[in-house]
């Protein structure tokens, strides 16, 4: 059946079909196809495709589909293995309450405080507005005094960082909620190079309660009697 013979390629070892072993010469002499005999070019049979293979493909396609959907992380570029959904990534992000309060505080500051104290907390010397950046009042160990200033306002004159600020009035901001005040102060105490501890809403609430009978603004001398820290 097979007309191909190894011996054609390796004359030293003639196959059974070539008793002489002198293949090249013999083949030349026969003149026909150069040196080598060979089978006809290959053909392909027509056996049916096994149905089981199609079944296997279908099953695997289904599996691949399910696998992809389960592991695709909703095709969201922010979802990496082993997370499976965007919500999961959000959940896995550690919540830092202080940082969140600070972010909130920036908004409050920009809306309420920055008009006078300037967005960069430098204050305004000409208008007698003291700076917040580097201010010893802001950086005090505890926030007891600045919470009171925000709640009830302040009547100067005031000394900050060695400079005198004349008789200007800071209006009370008791319309802000405890959370907003705590946030704004946390932001102020941790910005522009300031690095003092956060302010808790509970603290603001307690002071608001304690000073609810206070009439008018604080004066610096009054404030200095209040301990910085409990």
């Amino acid at each position, binding site marked *: 059946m097979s007309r191909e013979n190894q011996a054609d390629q390796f004359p030293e070892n003639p196959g059974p079909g070539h008793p002489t072993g002198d293949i090249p010469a013999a083949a030349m002499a026969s003149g026909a196809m*150069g040196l080598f005999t*060979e089978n006809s*070019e*290959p053909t392909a049979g*027509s056996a049916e495709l096994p149905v089981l293979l199609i079944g*296997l493909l279908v099953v695997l396609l289904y*599996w691949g589909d399910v696998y992809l959907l389960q*592991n695709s992380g909703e095709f969201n570029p*922010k979802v990496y293995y082993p997370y499976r959904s965007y919500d999961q990534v959000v959940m896995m992000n550690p919540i830092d309450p202080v940082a969140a309060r600070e972010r909130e505080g920036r908004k409050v500051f920009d809306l309420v405080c920055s008009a006078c104290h300037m967005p960069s907390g430098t204050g305004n010397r000409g208008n007698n507005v003291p700076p917040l950046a580097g201010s010893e009042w802001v950086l005090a160990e505890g926030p007891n005094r600045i919470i009171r200033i925000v709640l009830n306002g302040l009547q100067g004159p005031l000394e900050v960082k060695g400079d005198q600020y004349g008789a200007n009035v800071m209006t009370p901001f008791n319309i802000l909620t405890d959370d907003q005040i705590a946030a704004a102060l946390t932001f102020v105490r941790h910005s522009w190079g300031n690095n003092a501890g956060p302010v808790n809403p509970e603290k603001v609430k307690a002071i608001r309660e304690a000073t609810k009978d206070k009439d008018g603004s604080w004066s610096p001398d009054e404030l200095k009697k209040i301990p910085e820290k409990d």
Partner: protein
Amino acid sequence: MSAPSSPTVAPGAGASPAGRPVPVAEIDASLRWPVLLLFVSAVLWLVFGTILALIASIKLHGPGFLNGSAWLTYGRINPAAMNALLYGFASQAGLGVALWLLCRLGRVGLCCQAPLIIAGVFWNLGVAAGIFGILAGDSTGFQWLEMPRYASPILFAAYALIGLCAVITFHARRERPLYVSQWYLVAALFWFPWIYSAANYLLVFRPARGVMQAVVNAWFTNNFLGLWLAPIGLGAIFYFIPKLTGRPLHSRPLAAFGFWTLAFFTNWTGLTQLIGGPLPAWLPAASQAANGLMIVPILCAGMNWFLTLQTTDRQNQEHLTLRLVRLGATCYLAWGLMSIFTGLRAVSEVTHFTYVTVAQNYLALLGFLALTFFGCLYYIVPRLTQVAWPSEKLARWHVTCSTAAIAVIVIALTMAGLWQGAKLNNSTADFIALTRATLPWGGLFTLGLLLFLAGQLLFLKITVSQEFVFAAARLRRAVPPDGDQLFHRRGGAWGGRQTMNSGPLLFLGIFATLASSFWGLLLLPQLQIGRQEPVKLEANDALYPANRPGQARQGAEVYRSLGCVECHSQQVRPKGFGSDFERGWGERRTVAQDYLYDQPVLLGSLRLGPDLANIGARQTNAIWHLIHLYQPKSTSPGSMMPPYAFLFEKRQLRWGEARSPDALALTDAPSAEEIVPRPEAEALAAYLLSLHSDVPLFEAPMPLTKTNVVGAATTNAPTTTTNSPPPPK
């Protein structure tokens, strides 16, 4: 029989404009010079590549071996070896086989022989220029695309000419119906220029941004094997098994099914190389799904070959070519199954970054491709030269030697890799100790390569000793006058349906399959992660990542040029996947955001050294890095890293001369000389210090610690250094 319009001829053949099939001897004569050129240079590149691979493998267990200059460093020798094997040997041998098969199956002589010879010469020039470039340090750094930008266009142009000739020849075929092999060959000839040009364009000429480079690279390497070299090998196997057994291939419908499933799924599987890598979850998941589906085409091919071979008795299978092709086919099936297996997430957790990946590539390259192509060579070359092989005994030795060598190489690397992977994932195992413990397997690997080289030298002896190749030069004999009577018409029985005989339709399908992954694995992620911008960090409003300072960027060039990526990865896998986190290689997984300003992005695929994604935070001392580069063993006892002494200058101190302030403070240095880092070493150290991925990002959250709340390391700038080297972590 000779009449083209004979009723027994398959439909379509009679419609051919040229009609008359060309006699076999005439076909072979037309192929002689171009194909011989490709074959001879392929074999020479194989020997050259094996020698380079041998040197590289010796360096794995003896880092001091040939360690004098940058040219011979492992990071350059190893890619040079792979490029010689891939482009010099496999691609060229494959092209030769493809041309021969296309002519034989189309029953037509080769058109445009002179352009083909020119193109063949240029292909070799391109490979030579590329390998020279890699050794000279111009490597692009991308796996299997290391050839610099002055070499790859030569290769592409040479290929364009060869491919064009092949397509013209295919189009002019006298036998219109297509055989199975032709599908694979036409597909490969079309796929190669696409993947090669697209990958070069997106990585070298107009680089994609950030981690997209790693995606393109993985897509390329996967397709280079799976859609360029493998289809040619498969085409040859599908040709020779029925041809040499004298039996028809078991089933054409089965082959068609296997072909299309292979075409559709292979090109989607590339990103299984990046499981755990810095890619959004859906990208590796898509590749893993396709990877599972690869069972179907592999099963189809295996069934078809097995059932064909079964119809004939063993005696008919003694033919040397058939033996080689059968071995090649076995290696193909083994490689396919191995790829599926290592593409599973649980397996990849162990085998990723180990010698197993190397074993897999050698199984494909030397096992599947080299054995198959040698089978073809043994069959084709005598027909081209009209000279029989001088010695069957030597040829059988060549085959035995090569086969044994491949078995040794693959087994040694797989065992080493499995052991290495198991130990790597055990965070208590010391890194240096576990790397050293793979050395005996490395020795076995070297022996395997040596055996393989011996086999190839034997092959060279077979050809050269009888002036085998040169004999052809004297053989400008006229073609036998009339080949018609010898011409074996394919049986009229094509079997059942006459499907898949149309060139244009085949082309459309081939186009569509690759286009699917081009769209899905390259375009979609480009829209998602390819256009990322630096993000503002919550902690301190700084932008991340910051661009590298100039010196560190120069250091990145040194890192690329020396091929550090051959042994060091730059990616941290997520906590709980592998032990990257426990080993302290990173404080969180790396994500696409981390690589925004890297050029090139070198994620790495092997960890013979520790991961460097976060080295700038782990070891902040520049002096430590410099001393480590000069003498790795002095800072990391037992380290297998070769010393990079050529990055330093040794100066003799004159009497009374003060030491340079930059000189390394080595304990064992003679007092009369000093070691001063060259600018390259300083830049490399600056680059290493700039490697940070320790900032918490939304997509890669980190547990709250005091370091990252205040933003300890928020820039990529090198940390200031102190003079006392702290111990390495």
